[in-house]
Structures are given as C-alpha cells and as structure tokens.
C-alpha cells in the first residue's frame, strides 16, 4: 500500500464524478480519507476548495485541492506512476481515450439525463433514439480502443473505462425509471459484458452505489426538480 500522503476525497456516494476519483485511487492502491459533503447547504470546505464551480469531487493531496473529475484522474495517474497506468501509453491512444471521455460527459450523458425531465412520449422517444445512437458509438469505440481486450483500456481497466463505468449505476436507474433497456445485451453485447466486468472489479465494488438506494435518491431528486420547474 502506498504510504498515506494526506490524500482526501471530498464527495458524495451518489456522484459518478466522485466515483471516478475513488476508483483511480483504488487502482493505484492509495489510501485516502473520504469526506462526505453535506451538499445542502454546501460546506465551507467545498466553497473554499472549489470556489469556481463549488462542486464535488475535490481531491486533496499534500494540502492542494484538485477539481474536475477527469482532471483528478489524470493527476492521480501522473502522481502515482509505479502502479496500474490509467491513461494509455501511446499519445494517439490517449487522444482517442480523451475524446470519448469528453463525448460521454459533454454529449451523451446530458442527453440521457433529459429522459427523466421529458414530459411527452415524443420527447422521450427523441431522447431514447439519441441515447441508443450514443451507445452504438460506444460499442464501436470499445472495439477500437480495447483492441480485443476486456477493457476500453485494452488488457487493463483504464481512463475510458472509469469515465463510462462511473455512470453505470445511474444508467441502471434510468433503465428502471424509463423501462428502456439502454445496455441491451442483444444490441450491445460487448458493452453489456464490459459493464458486468466493471462492476465486479475490486477497485469499483466498494464505491458503486446500490441501484435501489440510488433509485430512491433519484426519484426524490427528480420530484424536487419537477416541482421547482413547474413553480416558475
């Protein structure tokens, strides 16, 4: 085990972004302290350590705060270099991994999230179509990036696995709430098998939320959001 160098993660159990930081630290076998963020209201620590966005996760190392989950993962990879490389070694593979992680965060996930806020069947159908188109792209990306291995990272779990895998609990929740089968084993066999593999990983198991607990949380959150938007 790497010696504790005062590593802390400020976060919350339901956040996929927080999960990324924790999975990366677990892969590197780095001990860390998990500080649960209060959220409502936001803690002094959060406001002080991430004044720009006021969001979790924040990684603390040697007293320095690092923000933005994918930046945190890269920091972890570049700091603890002797164990389990996370980014691919080759610059082109790295560029591709970064591209797909950005696609997942900036394009695909925002689309998937629209489902719960959709009000009509038409709206839901549009979101569903875009969601599936994205999964198809990711199924293809898995084959290109994975090069025959079990992971997007090839033979070992890597950056893109973390980027997408951290959303799996939320994907399952969306499946339960919508009745849509997003990770359909018939349509997307590679990704479906990968998802099970990811969730079974030692570095992931302890930090992946239980679907039912997350479902309860999601239902309450959506109810709050719908109430707020109809109150306008």
């Amino acid at each position, binding site marked *: 085990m790497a010696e504790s160098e005062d590593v802390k993660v400020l976060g919350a159990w339901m956040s996929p972004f927080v999960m990324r930081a924790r999975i990366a630290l677990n892969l590197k076998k780095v001990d860390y302290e998990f500080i649960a963020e209060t959220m409502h209201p936001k803690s002094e620590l959060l406001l002080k350590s991430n004044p720009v966005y006021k969001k979790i996760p924040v990684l603390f190392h040697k007293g320095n705060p690092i923000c933005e989950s994918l930046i*945190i993962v890269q*920091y972890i990879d570049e700091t603890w270099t002797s164990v389990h490389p996370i980014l691919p070694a080759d610059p*082109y593979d790295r560029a591709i991994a*970064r591209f797909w992680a950005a696609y997942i965060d900036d*394009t695909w996930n925002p689309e998937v999230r629209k489902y719960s806020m959709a009000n009509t069947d038409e709206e839901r159908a549009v979101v569903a179509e875009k969601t599936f188109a994205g999964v198809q792209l990711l199924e293809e990306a898995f084959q290109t990036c994975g090069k025959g291995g079990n992971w997007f990272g090839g033979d070992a779990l890597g950056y893109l696995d973390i980027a997408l895998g951290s959303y799996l609990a939320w994907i399952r929740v969306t499946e339960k709430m919508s009745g849509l089968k997003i990770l359909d084993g018939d349509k997307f066999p590679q990704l479906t098998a990968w998802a099970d593999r990811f969730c079974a990983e030692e570095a992931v198991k302890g930090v992946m939320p239980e679907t039912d607990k997350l479902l309860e949380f999601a239902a309450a959150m959506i109810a709050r959001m719908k109430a707020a938007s109809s109150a306008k």
Partner: protein
Amino acid sequence: MGSDLPEKGLVLLSSWPSMFGIRGVIALEEKGLEYEYREEHLGNKSATLLRLNPIHKKVPVLVHDGRPICESLIILQYIDETWPGADGAPCFLPADPFARSQARFWADFIDKKVYDAGTRLWKMKGEEHAEAKKEFIESMKLLEGELGEKPYFGGETFGFVDIALVSYACWFHTYDVTGGLNMEAELPKLMAWVKRCKERESVSKALPDPLKIYDFLLSLKKRYGIE
C-alpha cells in the same frame, strides 16, 4: 472512397476565425512542425471533415499520418506529447502533476465560461445580454487574477493555458463592440499579456486581424438572421 489526405505528415483542418483552430496553428508553429493548413468553410463542410469528425463535424481536426485527432485541447496535448521538448525546449504542459492539473483546469474553464459568455454577447439582447456581460467580465477577471504577476500563465514560459486563451484575443474587439465593453481598461494586465504573446511569431502568425473577425461576425449574423 479515395483519400485526399497524405499518408505521412500533418494536416490541420480549420477555419480562420475559429479560436479553437487558432490553437492548433499556434501549437504547430511553436513546435516548428511542417504541416498543411486546410481552410474549411463552415457553411459548406468538406466530405473529408465530415468523415474525420463524424460525431461533432467541427474544426479543428489534426490529421497525423492519416489519423484524425479532434477537439482543440486534445490536439494541443497530442502535439505536446508526440513532439516533447528537446534540448531544453519546454513543453506546453508543466512537468509537475499539480501544476499540470491547474493548467488543465484553467484551459477547461476558458472553454466552459469564456466561450459561452462571449458568444452570448453577440447573440443575446436585454437581460440575457446583461447577464452574459457580467459573466464574461467575471470570468476574464478570474483569469487575470490567475495570471497574476507572471509573464505567462505557464510562468516564465509560454504554455498550455496561454495558447488556450490567446487564441481568443482576435475576438476581444468583437466582444468589446457587441458587449459594450472596454477590455483594455477593465483588464490591463491581461491585455499586456496579450501583447507579450503577440511578440511570439507563432501567435502573430496564427491570429487574424480583429477587424476581420468583427466583419466575419456581421456576415455570420446576417446569414443566420440574428439582429
């Protein structure tokens, strides 16, 4: 489908007013690399662009030995990692992991905040415009604070965040006009930094005339019927 791209070498697909494409030019020039520049007309995108970047259909795209790299900050890192500093020539990103994380953070901030608020300065009216103006200045002031007394965001050396932000410099005049701003007055340290960066050949080559950018915006607004 025949490929009109060379098997070996570098091609940058870009569009002259694009701050994202300008980043690619600066990076390639900084590294002293030979490359072919191809102008894309964004109202009429080439088949090559659509094939190389089917998901976003955007510039810039860097093609290296026939393989595409998309997204400007990813392109910057690819160039930096593929042609790392030699003979003491510094890299865009610093060596220290924490400093790197900060550089990535601010480059990401620029794209999240400056681009969005800047665009709203010319797109929006009324209250939304006022909001955009406030956000734009706040974001730029935060960046100016981050620069501090350093010659560059990278410290003594021109680096990642410098490239990420100076690419917007040709748009500052447009933001001034559309935003009713005076960036020179409000952000003196930042504007001094812009001048400093422009002394570099890579930057002066990459940045188009700000007045041409403003003309471009006017024609863009006309084409899309934005008042």
